[in-house]
């Protein structure tokens, strides 16, 4: 069964304290892995799609990496405005729909 697990559920960081969020997945075949940012009461904001192991993508303080079993979202020197829920989703090649993880709630304190 295709499955996505995100950890930790919640993460508190001091401003400037770098860390990583994890997304572990099990799929028969991967068409793509998506990362989203979601602010309270708003729709998810697309960040990255990763397609193959070894791929990396960056956007400002965020860098996403992908292996055959998991993806990491690295946050370098975070700022309070990076506080949000980060969602990971996989797009199996056997399906037409995304499978979402439960998200990581990130709080960055000044």
């Amino acid at each position, binding site marked *: 069964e295709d499955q996505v697990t995100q950890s930790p559920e919640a993460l508190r960081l001091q401003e400037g304290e770098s860390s990583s969020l994890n997304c572990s997945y099990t799929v028969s075949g991967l068409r793509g892995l998506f990362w989203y940012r979601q602010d309270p009461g708003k*729709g998810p904001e697309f960040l990255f*799609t990763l397609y193959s192991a070894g791929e990396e993508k960056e956007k400002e303080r965020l860098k996403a990496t992908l292996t055959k079993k998991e993806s990491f979202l690295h946050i370098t020197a975070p700022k309070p405005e990076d506080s949000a829920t980060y969602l990971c989703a996989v797009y199996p090649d056997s399906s037409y729909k995304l499978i979402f993880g439960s998200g990581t709630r990130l709080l960055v304190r000044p």
Partner: protein
Amino acid sequence: SAVISQKPSRDICQRGTSLTIQCQVDSQVTMMFWYRQQPGQSLTLIATANQGSEATYESGFVIDKFPISRPNLTFSTLTVSNMSPEDSSIYLCSVEFTGPLYEQYFGPGTRLTVT
């Protein structure tokens, strides 16, 4: 990328009534999706709406409760019928772009409260 708008952005409705949510995209897309996000939860797919065909519903969701229209390649509606407090959620539409890259974008959501 895509610019997606939803109307209304929020509403408070009485039990037993229905609400129709509109989703408009600034470019033509084949596949549109409707999701529900209950408080504190992740996203749950309600149905997939392709232009020119009936919507495909996920397990636990039925057409009588969540009728969907997809009259063209830039627009869709989701109706939440005979509402109960359990239907209080954020409803999101989403569009997919395929080709050399796979990308899926979400609208801003409709926050529904049923009293």
